[in-house]
């Protein structure tokens, strides 16, 4: 190869500083619009973590705009300015420079600082989301193929279809699934959790803007995945109470204190079982499973001398499972609080189960 070296351009190019100024101006304009847009992702923030998430989006958007402009505009500019002239000899070469330690130092350090700042902001917002108080209202959302069910404390029946949330009430949503993995996403509130069978994930949100918002499944769950969506209605406390009252019989919720096992009445327990338990449990033998095992022989089953948690089948231990809920190899059962059961209810249920086992 011929070694005739055409004198290379050693400067930054004719328009380097104007182009740099252009990058700054364009980035500033983009930053201004990103920062001042009310809804950086185009959706109103309708619940409490949303403004914090939107702040993060704005920060990320501004940082991304700068980096993108720097890379793209310099690339195009260098590409035009340093293109080889049409009839340049084949031996024409560029500036033979290998590196520039100062430049490399700064383009390592500045992104590192940006990442540290971004990390701190993300961790802060993350911690806020984790520490949000939500327990004023606790709702359970259960996914199934292909829909959502919602269980409210003190409500006898689960609510299918539309979810209702009272305005400005810190709410905890426990999400789980009955069959395969689903997703639970309310875009306007920027909250999402996977609904995993056998696992309860927790979301906390405080709805702040009344309205009707989408709930969308975001994990592939089968043939009906595309249609698996519903809505959540955020309404005032009065409207919510009105709606709540229409949802049928309500019961007290699992309070503290001793469980009155001796006072349990089997016939009351039978009615309760029909409302609260029969969705998942049969009154047949253990193997007659619906979601959980059949409970017909729970106190007297030679094939299953222990309860699912390994304890002896005494009324106290059965009551304890109903009260605390259960999570283990055969599935998940919500606690009495979640199921809206009082201690008296538990006593009645245990009495009913005992009567079944005696037959």
């Amino acid at each position, binding site marked *: 190869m011929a070694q005739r070296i055409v004198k290379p351009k050693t400067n930054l190019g004719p328009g380097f500083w104007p182009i740099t100024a252009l990058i700054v101006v364009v980035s500033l304009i983009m930053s201004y619009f990103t920062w001042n847009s009310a809804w950086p992702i185009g959706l109103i923030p309708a619940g409490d973590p949303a403004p914090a998430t939107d702040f993060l989006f704005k920060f990320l958007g501004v940082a991304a705009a700068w980096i993108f402009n720097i890379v793209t505009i310099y690339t195009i500019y260098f590409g035009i300015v340093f293109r080889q002239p049409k009839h340049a000899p084949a031996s024409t070469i560029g500036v033979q420079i290998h590196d520039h330690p100062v430049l490399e130092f700064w383009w390592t350090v500045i992104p590192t600082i940006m990442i540290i700042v971004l990390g701190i902001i993300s961790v802060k917002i993350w911690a806020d989301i984790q520490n949000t108080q939500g327990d004023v209202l606790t709702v359970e959302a259960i996914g199934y193929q292909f829909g959502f069910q919602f269980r409210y404390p003190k409500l006898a029946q689960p609510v299918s279809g539309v979810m209702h949330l009272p305005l400005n009430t810190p709410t905890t949503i426990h999400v789980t699934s009955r069959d395969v993995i689903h997703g639970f996403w309310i875009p306007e509130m920027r909250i999402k959790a996977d609904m995993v069978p056998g696992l309860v994930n927790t979301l906390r949100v405080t709805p702040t803007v009344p309205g009707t918002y989408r709930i969308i499944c975001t994990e592939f769950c089968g043939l009906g995945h595309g249609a698996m969506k519903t809505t959540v209605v955020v309404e005032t406390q009065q409207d919510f109470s009105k709606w709540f009252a229409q949802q049928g019989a309500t019961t007290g919720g699992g309070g503290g204190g001793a469980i009155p096992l001796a006072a349990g009445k089997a016939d009351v327990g039978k009615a309760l079982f029909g409302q609260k338990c029969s969705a998942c449990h049969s009154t047949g033998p253990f193997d007659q499973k619906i979601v959980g095992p059949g409970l017909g022989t729970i106190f007297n089953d030679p094939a299953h*001398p*222990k309860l699912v*948690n390994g304890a002896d089948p005494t009324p106290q231990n059965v009551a304890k499972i109903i009260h605390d809920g259960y999570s283990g*190899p055969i599935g998940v059962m919500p606690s009495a609080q979640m199921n809206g059961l009082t201690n008296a209810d538990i006593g009645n249920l245990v009495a009913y189960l005992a009567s079944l086992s005696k037959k």
Partner: protein
Amino acid sequence: MSVSIAKQGYQLGHGHDDHDHEQVIYQETRDMRLLGFVLFLCSDVVLFSSFIFAYIYLRTTVAPIWPPMIDGHQLPRLDTAFAAVNSVVLFGSGVTMHYALENWKHGTRAMYNLFMGLTILLGAMFLGGQAYEYAHAQIGGWSGNTFGASFFTLTGMHGFHVFVGVVFLAVLWWQSSRGVYDHERYFGLTAGTLYWHFVDVIWVALFFLFYLW
């Protein structure tokens, strides 16, 4: 041997006679194969590690108690005493394998044959012990629960490796009797020894995880 182009152009700095050159080619080939074989064992370690991770995950984050409850019974623990004896058999085969290779290097053929035979025998005994244990483990079978799933999958994979190892060693033994190796060139035996020690080390982890933990 035939001429390679090493003889043309600039000198390679190896000896000039054919034997030296042959020896260099052998060494280079052997070193490359050794590196390749060690990398293969490393990636095999990841296979076992993944299942060990699965076992630890299922045991510590999913199951409320261990061994798990099945149909109202808690599953029994595995028979540690028997497995300990079986482990000694396997570790013993590691020792005999070591001496087999040492004896090969020193050219003591009779001792080599003795130790090689012992290694294969102990390996086969270990497999027999595993079969006995499989027949007597009361943990609900492979597809019954997560304990059985992790135990039978991991030890089954290990057992498969032992089985392959026994066949591998038998082939090596046959090859060495046919004069494939000499006391300077015995990469196959090195690989076999490495593999066998690898199988031993995996068993240390499995023994701890399933019997002692």
